[in-house]
Each structure stands twice: as C-alpha cells, then as structure tokens.
C-alpha cells in the first residue's frame, strides 16, 4: 500500500474534534483510530493521542496532534481522514485556532448529561469563524444521566441543525462511531487545492525532536512537498532541506510526498523553533509564492511569574530547559530576572494558571530541576507622574507610590454558563471580586449565561475552583481579554525577619489590602517551618506595617535513642530530613518553602 496521495484530493477530509473539557474528545478519537485500524486494538492504550504523561495525569489534551486514518466508505472508495485533536481548556484556545486553520470540518462533541458549556460555545464560534462544516455529536449516551433529546434541542437552537440529525454516540462503548465516520465523509467538504500550483503549506503546530530538529506540522494548501524539495519559510526566509516528510499514524511515518489538501509533517532539521514558527507559511525555495497564508497572532501571555532554581547553580540548566520547552510551546515566553531574595531566575509569561502549572511540572519532571515559582501576577500598565508609561508584570518592580500617577490593570469579559438556580451564588462570587454585571440570558428554561467584566487579577487565583464549588460543579466559564482600566491599587510588601522579600510582594486593591495582609501573614506563618531563631513576618504598604505575626524558633530537633543499635534507620531519617530541607530556599537567614511563595494563592479561602 502506498501512502503518497493514497487518496485523490476529493477523497481527503481534514477535520478536528472540538468540545468542552471532559466531554469525550480524546475517547472519541480513540474509537475512530480503532475503527479505521490506524492502531491495532492491542497497542491501544487509552487515549492514544494524549502523549505526555502529564496529560494523562491531568486528563486533558494539551497539544494538538494530527493523525491520518484510512477509511473504507460505503461507496467502495477509500478516504483519507486527517484528524486533528485539540485542547479543550481555555488556557489553550489559541491552539484550537491553529488546528482549525488546517481543517474543513469540525466534529462538535457535547456531553449528553452536561449539555452545552462554555467552551462548547467558545470553540464552536471559533470553528464558525474559520467557516468549517460542523457535525454536532452528542456523546456519553450510555450515561444514566444522559438527556440526549434535550441536548439535541439545545444544539438545534444553537446551530439550526434539526435535532434528529444530531448524531448520538457513546465514545466509551463505541456506539455510533461508524456513523460518525460516514458523516465525516458525507458532511465535510473535501479540501480545495491544486498539486500543480506553487507550494503553500501552513505550519499549524510543531514539536522539537533532538535528531530531526523542529518537526513542523503542516497542512498543504497547494502544491507538493517531497523529502527532496527545497523549502522556504515565508516570514523569515529560512531555507529548509527536509530530513523527512511524513504523516502521523499516529507515530511519525515517512512518506514520499504530501500533496494539496494533505496533513502531515516536515522534519526541518532546524535547531531553533523560532526559525519555523507556528502560523508561518512554507513555500518552495525555487518557486516561492508571493503571499503567505493568513497566519496566527502569537498568543499573548496573561499571567506572569518568576521561576527560580532552588539551587542557584542550576540557573543555566533552567535556561536551557526553558529554551527546550519553548521549542514545543511557542506560547511560553521568558526573560532573565533577578530577585534579591531568590537570586537569578526567569520571568515567565503563561496563557493561564493551568499552563503555568504544566510548564513548572514539565521543567521539574522532564529536566529534573527543583524550582520555585513566585505567585502569579498580571501585567499592569503604570502611568508615572512624569508622564511615562511602564509595564509591570512583577509587583516588586512597581515604583514608589509617589512616582505613580495611575495603575491600569487588565480586565476580562467572562461568560458563566450555569443552571439558573445558581445565579445568586455566581453574582455573589463575581461582585465580591470587583466584577461588574453586564447581562443575563436564558439558554433554555433551566440554563443561563451570565456575563461580567472583572479584573483578571481577581479571577487568576481560585476563581475557577470557587465557581465549581458554589455551583456543585455545574457552571463553566469562558473568558476573553477586554482591556486595561485604572484601579485604586497598592503594592503590599512582605517582610520576613525584618527584610522585604521582593518575591512575595503583591499588588492589591486598596480596599482589600488590610484583609489580605492579615490573611497572608497568617498563611505564611503556617507554611514557614520554624527556624533556629524566631522570625517576625510583616505585611506593609510603603513604610506602614498593616499586619504582623511571628514564627517561633525551633528548640528541639533531635533523634531519640538508637534502639538496639539501628544506625541505618537513624541515617535514613536524617537523610529524609536533609532532603526536605534541600527544597527550602534560603532568603537572608531564613529558609522558605515553595508554599510560602504560593501562600498568596490561598487568600480567598
């Protein structure tokens, strides 16, 4: 069997699956892979497309992947179906956008019990912007709580697709998956494009391979890519001599060529991901096109935090690790930063808190670094009295209040989807965090969308958990950046052992400064292990201390007798203790645990 243009362009379908998180995208992808025998059942670990350990643990799909399936359709023809898996979490919605640009169609998965949720809509709107053919699918019809008829009507209202044309499947049990394959062939249009035209291929994702360099995931719009082709990136005119051209099956599998309409990869051999960015257009070096395809706006970080090695000696390792990670994650930005408390580290920008958590975990796990992260911050625009405007994404860098005219902070527009009985708690949650109510709409008799404007800083920490806990898990949220607005904000400094710890500074609204200060010093007292001396902890605004407490000195830390000469046990105990202390960061004379820098995250409990 040959894989080169196994199918003429009329027999190619490029599609993605979009859904709210946990509605079953990954499971459904697995079923399609099985049915098309892209993967033998025995090789089938659950959710094959979630490659990274982390993804499996967190049960989410982080990076989009592409895989080619061959499907024998009822018309006796074989079709090439290219499935592009997409992330569901709002932190990663830019990646959804990349994936959509490579497709003509989208399978919209909706959980039969949950119904339409925030990211269902957000992703659907994205898909409609990209003018995709939409196949709505109700999943998890096997669940006792499934209410497929109601959900079908919600979908009908939303999309105008008659309720009885909405497919009903159980990805878990494989029900209806065959019908879905049929619908993909019949309801999604084949790609347009022409093998004989000059090459234009869109880079919609990439990953880094230490042997083959940057692997660009491409969708060929026109023309042909062969391993022998000389290629060119259009944004920065980098020449590429591909080491390999192939498709994902789902493992990387070389093919002789990719033609118009195909999805696959080019192993570029490039060592720097910046030389072949997601969103770029690849063309032929000998016969380049004049105009690139519409690219992507690079995703803008929303959340900033400092990452520091626990051991200062690991600084260059951390830099190398961040660079490596950036090869696979173009949305990660970082620049060197130094802190009097923590020494040398990096200020990193993330798409959201989940993204931050994932980056930190990957650095620690895959690169065996011990890291300390400072509390996340948003990006403030600070108007100085001299008329200058500076950007501050690290609270410790906020200039003295006497030089500050006004501080502007980012505001978000958020949509909360929820059963109507939780309107009260949701109003309370949002207005308690400076949210401004905009409007309320009923989706049906029981479900509403509440829309608010709210400072990003207020939803950064713990908002999502609160949202879930106040609505027994029923509410979901979507958010988008709205703009900067001035606020009555002040910098709160934390002094440990009489010395300000820059990495603990935070910017808060003046009205909540006192409460947050007292709570923060209490939290710090809980997490800072007692030292060989008493350690005062204070919160201050300018020179005014607004809260204080004390961590008592350790007086006793010694092993009892050595029962029956068990020296080994003693040694192990000491080793464990020592290991524990190695994870502390010495700041001045005080050893601080990571939790101290994260104490700010728990100010709303």
């Amino acid at each position, binding site marked *: 069997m040959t894989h080169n243009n196994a199918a003429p362009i009329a027999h190619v379908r490029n599609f993605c699956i979009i859904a709210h998180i946990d509605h079953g995208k990954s499971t459904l992808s697995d079923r399609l892979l099985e049915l098309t025998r892209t993967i033998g059942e025995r090789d089938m670990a659950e959710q094959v497309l979630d490659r990274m350990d982390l993804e499996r643990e967190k049960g989410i799909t982080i990076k989009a992947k592409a895989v080619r399936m061959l499907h024998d359709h009822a018309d006796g023809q074989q079709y090439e179906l290219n499935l592009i898996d997409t992330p569901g979490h709002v932190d990663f919605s830019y990646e959804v956008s990349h994936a959509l640009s490579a497709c003509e169609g989208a399978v919209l998965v909706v959980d039969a019990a949950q119904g339409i949720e925030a990211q269902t809509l957000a992703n659907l709107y994205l898909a409609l912007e990209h003018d995709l053919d939409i196949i709505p699918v109700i999943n998890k019809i096997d669940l006792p709580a499934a209410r497929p008829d109601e959900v079908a009507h919600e979908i009908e209202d939303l999309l105008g697709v008659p309720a009885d044309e909405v497919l009903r499947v159980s990805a878990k049990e494989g029900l209806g998956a065959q019908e879905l394959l049929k619908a993909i062939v019949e309801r999604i249009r084949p790609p347009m494009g022409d093998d004989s035209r000059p090459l234009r291929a869109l880079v919609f994702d990439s990953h880094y391979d230490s042997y083959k360099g940057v692997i660009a995931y491409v969708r060929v719009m026109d023309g042909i890519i062969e391993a022998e082709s000389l290629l060119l990136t259009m944004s920065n005119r980098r020449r590429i001599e591909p080491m390999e051209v192939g498709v994902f099956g789902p493992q990387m599998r070389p093919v002789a060529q990719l033609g118009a309409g195909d999805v696959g990869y080019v192993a570029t051999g490039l060592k720097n991901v910046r030389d072949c960015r997601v969103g770029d257009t690849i063309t032929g070096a000998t016969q380049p096109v004049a105009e690139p395809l519409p690219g992507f706006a690079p995703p803008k970080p929303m959340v900033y935090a400092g990452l520091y090695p626990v051991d200062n000696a690991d600084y260059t390792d951390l830099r190398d690790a961040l660079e490596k990670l950036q090869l696979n994650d173009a949305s990660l930005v970082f620049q060197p930063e130094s802190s009097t408390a923590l020494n040398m580290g990096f200020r990193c920008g993330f798409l959201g808190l989940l993204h931050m958590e994932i980056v930190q975990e990957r650095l620690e796990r895959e690169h065996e670094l011990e890291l300390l992260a400072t509390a996340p911050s948003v990006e403030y625009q600070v108007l100085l009295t001299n008329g200058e405007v500076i950007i501050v994404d690290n609270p410790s860098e906020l200039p003295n209040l006497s030089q500050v005219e006004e501080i502007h902070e980012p505001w978000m527009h958020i949509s909360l989807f929820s059963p109507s009985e939780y309107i009260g708690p949701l109003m309370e949650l949002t207005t308690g965090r400076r949210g401004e109510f905009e409007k309320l709409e009923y989706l049906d008799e029981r479900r509403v969308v509440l829309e608010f404007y709210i400072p990003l800083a207020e939803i950064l920490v713990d908002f999502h958990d609160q949202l879930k806990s106040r609505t027994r898990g029923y509410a979901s949220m979507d958010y988008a950046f709205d703009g900067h607005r001035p606020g009555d904000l002040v910098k709160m400094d934390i002094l440990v052992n009489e010395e300000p710890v820059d990495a603990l500074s935070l910017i808060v609204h003046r009205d909540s400064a006192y409460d947050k200060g007292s709570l923060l010093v209490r939290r710090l007292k809980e997490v800072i292990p007692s030292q060989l001396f008493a350690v005062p902890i204070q919160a201050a605004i300018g020179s005014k201390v607004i809260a204080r407490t004390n961590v008592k000195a350790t007086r*006793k*830390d010694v092993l009892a007798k050595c029962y*029956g000469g068990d020296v080994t046990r003693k040694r192990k105990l*000491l080793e464990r203790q020592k290991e524990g202390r190695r994870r502390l960061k010495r700041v001045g004379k005080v050893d601080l645990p990571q939790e101290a820098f994260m104490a700010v995250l728990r100010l709303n409990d």
Partner: protein
Amino acid sequence: MTRGGIYLHIPFCEAKCIYCDFCSYAGLEALHGAYVDALLVQIRQSGSSRHGLTFDTLFVGGGTPTVLTSEQLAAIVAACRTWLGLPEDAEATVEANPGTITQASLAALLQAGYNRLSIGVQSLHDQELALLGRIHDVRGALEAITAARAVGFSNLSLDLMYGLPHQPLARWQATLERALALAPEHLSLYALTIEERTPLARSIALGALPAPDDDLAADMYELAQEMLSACGYAQYEISNWARRSPGDQPGQPPARACQHNLHYWRNEPYLGLGVGAHGYDGQRRYAHIVDPEEYVRRVAAGESTLASSEAISRDQAMDETMIMGLRLANGVTRDRFRRRFGVELDAVYAEALAALANTGLLEVDATGIRLAPRGYLLGNRVFAEFMRAGS
C-alpha cells in the same frame, strides 16, 4: 584486636506500651524456652566466626528480658562467657521492668554475672504510668530499685520519659526529684517520640491525646540538665547522664557511663543476636528478622536469620562515626578520626564545618568538635550536615 559489644534481644513483654513500635510481643510465653535455646545456639555459632573481635560488654535488651526466668538469663550470660569470651569483669547489663522482678530473681541475676541493671521506670507518677500502658506503678518501681540495691547491684540505671501527654513541667520535675533521691549511677532521659502505627499515634490522630509540645519538651530537657548537673551527674551523651566518680577524667566519659552504648556512639562493632537485633561487624551492618517463631524455626533448621545486610563504605563509616560520635559530650576528636581513617576530619568535613560556623550549634577547638550546649536539642541540624550526598 578490635573491641566490641554484644547485644541480645529478648522480644517479649507482658503487655505492649502505647508508644512502643519496637520488636516486642506480648502473649508469646509458650515460645520463651525455644527462643532462648535458639539464642544460645546462635551465641555458640557466633563464637566460631568472631573475625578478630573481642567482646567487652553485654547488653540484654528488649522487650522485657526479665519476663524470662533467672535461669534462662543466667544461661545466656554463661554462654557469652564460654563462646564469646566475655570477661568476668565486663559490663553486663540486663534491662528489667518493675513488675517482672523480685528480690530473689534479682539476686539470681547478680549471681549469674549481670552487674548492671537498667530499669525501665519511665515515670514516677501513677497516672502517667497507666496512660503509657506500663504494667507497674510508682510503688512497684521504687520496690524494684530498693530490691536491686538490697541484693547488691552497685550499677543501676533508670530510664525516664518526658514530654508525655498532659505532663506539666512541675510533674516532670517531681519525677526527676524522686529519681535523684534514689541516687542511681546512671540516668537515661528520653523525650516521648510518636512512632507511626502505634496506639499512641492513633490516639493523637484521633484527637484523644494531645500532640507533643516541642517547646515544653525542650523546657523539660533543660530543666533536667540543670537538676542533674546540680546533683553531681555528668551528661556524657545527648540523653544520658552518669554520676560523677572521683577518678573521672576531663575529655573522657565518666566511669559510670554505659560502656556498651559507648561502642555504638564510637561507631565500634557490636554483635547483634535475636529477632530485630541489629549488628555491625566493622564492615557490614545487618539486621535479623523480626518474627520470633520464624526465628526459632530457622535456627533449628540451620538457616540464616538475617533480614538484611549492607556493606558500609569507608565514606559511610566516616559519616556514621560523625553522626553517632557527635551525640557524645566529648564529640569526635581529631586524633581518633585520624587514627581510624587516616585522614583529617577537617578536610573531609570542610563543607559541614563551614555551614555550621556561626550557628552556635557546634564547638570546634584543637582537640576536636562537639555539640555546643545549644546544639544538644538541635542535634539533627548538626548531624545532617555530616551526611555527605551519595555516601
């Protein structure tokens, strides 16, 4: 010849105390005879493989060794003399718990050759004893001590515990005063430690008993240091005091120090026999299995009773010499370290010494290094520095 000690473990108790996670079992009376026989066999077998060790101390610990008959305990010490060459005048300690001894049994033990008695008094307050699950009361403890003196034991050690649930400082002081009035030659004072999977740990987890208060325990420790020093006791180890004798030399442990335990703290070899017992032959550390029935079976079948055995590298031996030796008031001397390892202590532990400089935890002078007074209660902070990575 290298000198070392003999440790024999008797894993039986009448009842298990709430804090005990040590290898001891109540209700195995039927096994006593067979267990002693197995020990005797192992003592004899160890005699033929002594690897150039001479033994100059014996410690029979438990559990409660005195749940055995005096004849059984006599047979044990006799076997050590015969097979392991334990000299007549060697320190031979047996642990005894009030409630399991009588004047007659004590006389028999002295007669058999035990010359040091370590009595598990723990507290001299009835409620505390009851709470700990001890089988004796204060009167029983006092009677045991009087009896030991009466039959002629001239080297008595008392174990006491502090930091007990609901124990106020004043009550600890009262226990100490009463204990001092008995003029024992030796005192071991241990802070109650919460070991996992003990009834005590469960009670604390359930909130039925208060968690230990480290600050209060520290006050109790400091109080004991003052009181014992004022009464003529020298603290020669973190938890151990001996009554001063006229011939005591500065820089040397007092004559009444427990010679057997000094082997541990000096990181010298000791033969360990019996369930759960640990041993160190100078090259390897080993431990025996903990199940008494299985132990008896294996000895009878001629099988090994070891549960683990670990070769100790030279680096490890150095670290262990430090973490054990620093428990002693005299610490580790440069001389001793150099003689044993052929290198300078200061060179091997330059990093640790630098880290500890100015902490007030360690004293360094021309002879060697030792805990500073402030370091006694913070020993772990000091010891940990002497555990080199990877050793």
